[in-house]
């Protein structure tokens, strides 16, 4: 009996002392946090991709709560859906943002861009790029070792086994920009996703002179200037032997796509062109 009693008493005393200590500790070290931060944090994707420019989702939540308006604050991973929830919680207006997507500006697949040497070091773009120009003659193009794949938190970029080039999964890409930072060759760019995901861009970053670029890769931009001339919207500039399409000015008319002699300007997600007259006739008939 004594034994049980002493056990109960001693445990009770220990428990009581612990409770008192914990009580004072929690009072003493209490940190006040705006409850809004927690609420906002809960609706964020929680992947801590850093695409918003803040250290993780918690950091973004804090910034949203502290800021007077949501101007310039955008969660690329969650998109408008999440941002409107955030705005709802905080009772503020949300700024609409143009949906963006990561675009790989290199089309130099194995057939287009023959390998001239074999890389035998660590399969990392960063290490290969700091060592030398790459396995092909083109020193600007994709190395294909997949640093972008490693960097992606959304599993939205993969290396195509045939072309050895990375491909972006449209629906999964959160346009957080991690791959853009990871690519040592600066090939990946965040561009406007475009209406119905339709977009065109120059799929090359080679700054060598036209003849050299052509020798290095069949689909290189040779800076011939045809696209620049044909563009009616002043959207194309040529600098350092390389054409660039400004996505803010581009109207997706696709004239440049047709004139490009090396097919360096691909069109993405456009329906196939209806060129032959009979097709049009049929369509008219159907309409009628």
């Amino acid at each position, binding site marked *: 009996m004594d034994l049980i009693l002493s056990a109960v008493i001693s445990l009770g005393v220990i428990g009581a002392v612990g409770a008192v200590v914990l009580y004072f500790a929690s009072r003493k070290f209490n940190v006040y946090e705006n409850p809004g931060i927690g609420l906002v944090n809960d609706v964020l994707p929680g992947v801590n991709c850093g695409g918003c420019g803040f250290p993780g989702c918690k950091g973004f939540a804090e910034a949203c709560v502290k800021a007077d308006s949501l101007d310039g604050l955008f969660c690329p991973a969650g998109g408008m859906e999440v941002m409107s929830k955030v705005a709802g919680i905080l009772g503020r207006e949300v700024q609409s943002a143009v949906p963006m997507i990561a675009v790989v500006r290199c089309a130099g697949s194995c057939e287009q861009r023959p390998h001239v*040497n074999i890389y*035998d070091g*660590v399969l*990392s773009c960063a290490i290969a790029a*700091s*060592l*030398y*120009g790459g396995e092909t003659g083109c020193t600007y193009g994709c190395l294909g070792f997949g640093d972008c794949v490693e960097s992606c938190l959304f599993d939205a970029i993969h290396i195509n086994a045939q072309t050895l080039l990375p491909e972006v999964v449209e629906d999964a890409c959160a346009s957080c920009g991690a791959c853009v930072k990871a690519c040592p060759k600066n090939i990946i760019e965040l561009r406007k996703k475009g209406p119905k995901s339709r977009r065109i861009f120059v799929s090359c970053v080679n700054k060598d002179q036209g003849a050299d670029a052509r020798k290095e890769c069949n689909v290189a931009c040779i800076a011939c200037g045809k696209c620049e001339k044909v563009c009616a919207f002043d959207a194309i500039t040529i600098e350092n032997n390389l054409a660039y399409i400004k996505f803010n000015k581009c109207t997706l008319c696709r004239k440049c796509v047709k004139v490009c002699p090396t097919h360096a300007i691909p069109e993405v997600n456009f329906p196939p062109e209806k060129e032959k007259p009979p097709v049009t006739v049929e369509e008219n008939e159907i309409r009628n």
Partner: protein
Amino acid sequence: MLKTFRLGGIHPQENKLSAGKKIETLPTPGQIVIPLSQHIGAPAVAVVQKGDAVKAGTLIAKANGFVSAGIHSSVSGIVVKIDDITDASGYRKPAVFIKVEGDEPEPFIDQSPGLNKNITLSSEEIIRKIADAGIVGMGGATFPTHIKLTPPSDKTAQLLIINGVECEPYLTSDHALMLEKGNEIMVGTQLLMRALKVKRAVIGIENNKKDAIVHLSDLSKNYDGIKICPLKVKYPQGSEKQLVDAVIKRRIGSGKLPIEVGAVVQNVGTAFAVYEAVQKNKPLFERIVTVTGKGIKNPSNYRVKIGTPVNELITAAGGISENTGKIVGGGPMMGKALVNAEVPVTKGCSGILVLPGEETARKERRNCIRCSKCVSVCPMGLSPYLLMTVSEFSVWDKAKSECITDCIECGSCSYTCPANRPLLDYIRLGKNKVQAHGVSRIV
């Protein structure tokens, strides 16, 4: 007991295939391509134009800025064009293309074969002549020599150390030079001593070059203040910090230069180039290159004009065998793999090494077994296994606090690793990142 450095180090198979071979002069090819960036620092600026006639020794590009060096034509002929050429790493860099016509050196070069031992010039005049001759560190670092000879005003040099270590396997160009041009090296050393205003010089030579040690020791009796220091064979003894530790038992602190302990290190090749520049007015446009490796039929040492394509050297040495895996510019431990054999020989190219595929191909990478062999061979006392891991997972602040920037990239860790881990690849990446982020060295 021979002297050596006291921390880490390895002893790779020496494979000095071309040891004892006389220096042969390589015939001048039909066209020479001289890159404008052959040194650490800003590329030189071309001062010739297409169509200009040049002679051997004509300045074709002048130094651009403080850390830079002039470049001279190595042949007489006509400048064909100034255009980009694919360099060793595949990138395009500007270079001067010269079509060879005749064999006419500049008249100011003293062609007499005799040895000129009279040192008449002052320190400043010697340094100016060295700068004018475009001399850079000939051991491979290619740091402009005249800058190394002008230490900061608050430091004074007390000792000149001449690096005749040649600790890289395979390479024998310095060895051949010491055997054949011993007197010139001695005079060059005295010129450097005069330039630095020091009274003593030590020539460090590894003990696998006994004939060079004996030869230079005999010669050193005729030259005041020059001593020969035989060293135990151990890699990377040719690194400045390790060489200073080996010779005078002083360790240079993290991020500091040898001048910190009163020493200046110069390569024997540099000493020879200094002799030619100062006593014979000859700018740096030739160098000794070892062409060697198990993929080469006749490993040899050549006197080569700067700008000669590498495949000329390889052809002269009997061509390469079928199973060639890699052509390396420099030694097997620190050299750079060449993307093709058309690249020209530059000032810092001490050897062309042709390695068969099976000797050089990387083997399957395994888990780190924590054998700590990388730790025990690291000459800088770092923990390569840890540095690799932090670099692989991008923990840059940890890399910084583990002193990743102290790494001299000697490759001893990767060479030793039983799990074939690419330690240095990742450490070099981390080092670049830490330096690029503007993080100063932690002392």
